[in-house]
């Protein structure tokens, strides 16, 4: 068995995937809740069975992907490509969670098996201690709360889409190892939740960078000195969320030859990009008024050391009528250079603009109180500069998902 360690991140190789998945299913369906002595334990889970078909788009080969392509999850390198057959891997996943608790102390773990990565990954593993009724502290591995839906990005049933809008919800790190302090309070009809976090994250085979460096590439990423927080204010039908996170980031592009037998790379060379600071700013406004749903989200990421910025916006409007929920979504991503895009310490680079715009129409039908069916049409238009690489072009994709929580 080849085991890649990245902090608490574990990836199980092909030989164990089927066994792991079967174990997850068995565990999820047999364990639900119980008590042993003073320890209360509970088990929950979720899954999404998704299929998709690329309808049309720009026919081009990009970074070993046979396009047209639509990236449904950057962090997992989940890509719908130009093959004519139905594709199930990008959006299908199964997650199980177990929690054991006793008198204000609890331990939670969540494992997710994804079709895109072909592996089962430890996503959450943290201990929680309730300092008092309003404040708690968590220590361990958690989701990095960069975006509004970060915490539930894998739980299809909690989302109005078959997959998250990729332009905004696409980044290289989604978890971190560290500490988080949560404070929750109420006054009048307002509820506020604030989190302060600090930690680090490393990933020894980043899915995100396979999109940019090639399907067979391997890039290691390291986020150090992560700290920041978020504040959510909600009252009745509306919710506003602010987030700020900063870290130092470093990417190590490993060149080598992939050996499918050993599931590892024969190292040839590596390029270590300079350690650089990034600052993430986010603002979300969400309304759920009578049957109308409105979601807007803006994220900006500054990379002062690398001389570029990311901007992403999302607008969605939906309506809930009995079991049906149609929603229209517009999203846009733009990466721009500043100071002529000079990359210090490596070489001057002629950075062109990377711009994608996505329009989606999704319909959700609630099959039961714990399951739904969704159909979604995505139309992505690539407005990147002609010189920008990789240029994935346009894509029109149809996806269906069945989501369930248990």
């Amino acid at each position: 068995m080849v085991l890649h360690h990245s902090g608490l991140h574990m990836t199980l190789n092909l030989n164990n995937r089927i066994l792991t998945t079967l174990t997850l299913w068995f565990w999820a369906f047999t364990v639900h809740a119980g008590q042993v002595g003073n320890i209360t334990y509970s088990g929950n889970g979720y899954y999404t069975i998704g299929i998709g078909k690329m309808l049309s788009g720009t026919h081009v080969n990009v970074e070993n992907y046979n396009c047209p392509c639509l990236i449904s999850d950057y962090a997992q390198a989940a890509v719908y490509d130009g093959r004519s057959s139905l594709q199930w891997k990008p959006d299908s996943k199964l997650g199980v969670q177990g929690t054991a608790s006793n008198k204000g102390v609890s331990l939670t773990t969540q494992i997710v098996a994804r079709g895109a990565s072909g592996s089962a990954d430890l996503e959450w593993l943290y201990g929680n201690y309730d300092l008092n009724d309003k404040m708690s502290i968590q220590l361990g591995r958690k989701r990095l709360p960069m975006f509004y839906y970060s915490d539930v990005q894998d739980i299809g049933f909690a989302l109005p889409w078959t997959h998250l809008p990729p332009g905004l919800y696409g980044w290289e790190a989604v978890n971190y190892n560290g500490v988080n302090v949560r404070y929750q309070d109420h006054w009048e009809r307002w509820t506020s939740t604030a989190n302060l976090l600090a930690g680090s994250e490393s990933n020894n085979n980043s899915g995100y960078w396979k999109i940019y460096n090639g399907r067979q590439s391997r890039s290691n990423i390291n986020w150090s000195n992560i700290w920041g927080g978020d504040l959510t204010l909600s009252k009745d039908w509306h919710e506003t969320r602010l987030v700020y996170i900063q870290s130092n980031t470093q990417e190590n592009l490993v060149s080598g030859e992939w050996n499918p037998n050993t599931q590892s790379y024969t190292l040839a060379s590596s390029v270590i990009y300079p350690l650089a600071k990034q600052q993430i700013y986010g603002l979300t406004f969400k309304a759920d008024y009578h049957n109308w749903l409105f979601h807007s989200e803006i994220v900006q990421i500054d990379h002062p050391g690398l001389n570029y910025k990311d901007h992403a916006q999302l607008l969605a409007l939906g309506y809930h009528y009995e079991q049906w929920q149609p929603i229209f979504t517009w999203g846009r991503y733009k990466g721009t250079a500043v100071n002529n895009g000079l990359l210090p310490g490596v070489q001057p680079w002629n950075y062109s603009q990377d711009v994608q715009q996505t329009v989606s129409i999704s319909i959700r039908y609630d099959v039961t109180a714990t399951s739904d069916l969704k159909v979604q049409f995505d139309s992505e238009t690539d407005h990147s500069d002609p010189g920008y690489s990789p240029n994935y072009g346009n894509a029109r994709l149809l996806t269906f998902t069945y989501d369930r929580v248990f």
Partner: protein
Amino acid sequence: MGHRLIVLLFLIIFCPASTFAEDVVVVVNQKNSVNKLTRDEVIDIFLGRNRQLSSGVTALPLDLPGTADEREYFYSHLTGKSMSEINAYWARLIFTGRATPPTLVRSQEEAMQMVIDNRSAISYVNRNKASSQVRIVFELNNK
């Protein structure tokens, strides 16, 4: 008389079960000093937003099983949301450890017993199941 009895039996047999759930009350332990709760306070307790009662007690909300008509009636009339929307809301909290859902009980009878036995417990039940040993603090009906 016989004709009226037949009509009455017909109504009882064929009347949708949900109509029996349309008089739901929220009850607490008699030792809990809370006499009345507002709709917003009940929403906060059962959606995990704020479980601190004015009596100083931290509420322990109870949920009836998913098959109970009273459960769907309670949430849909309390919040205006379907059970699917409520469960999606809980999925966001459960899988991120942000809040604990109400404790699931097997029946209204078990809910009543827990409220009688536990000073912190709070449950919704059909009015005709409410024991005289508990206090009604909120009424949810179609009137």
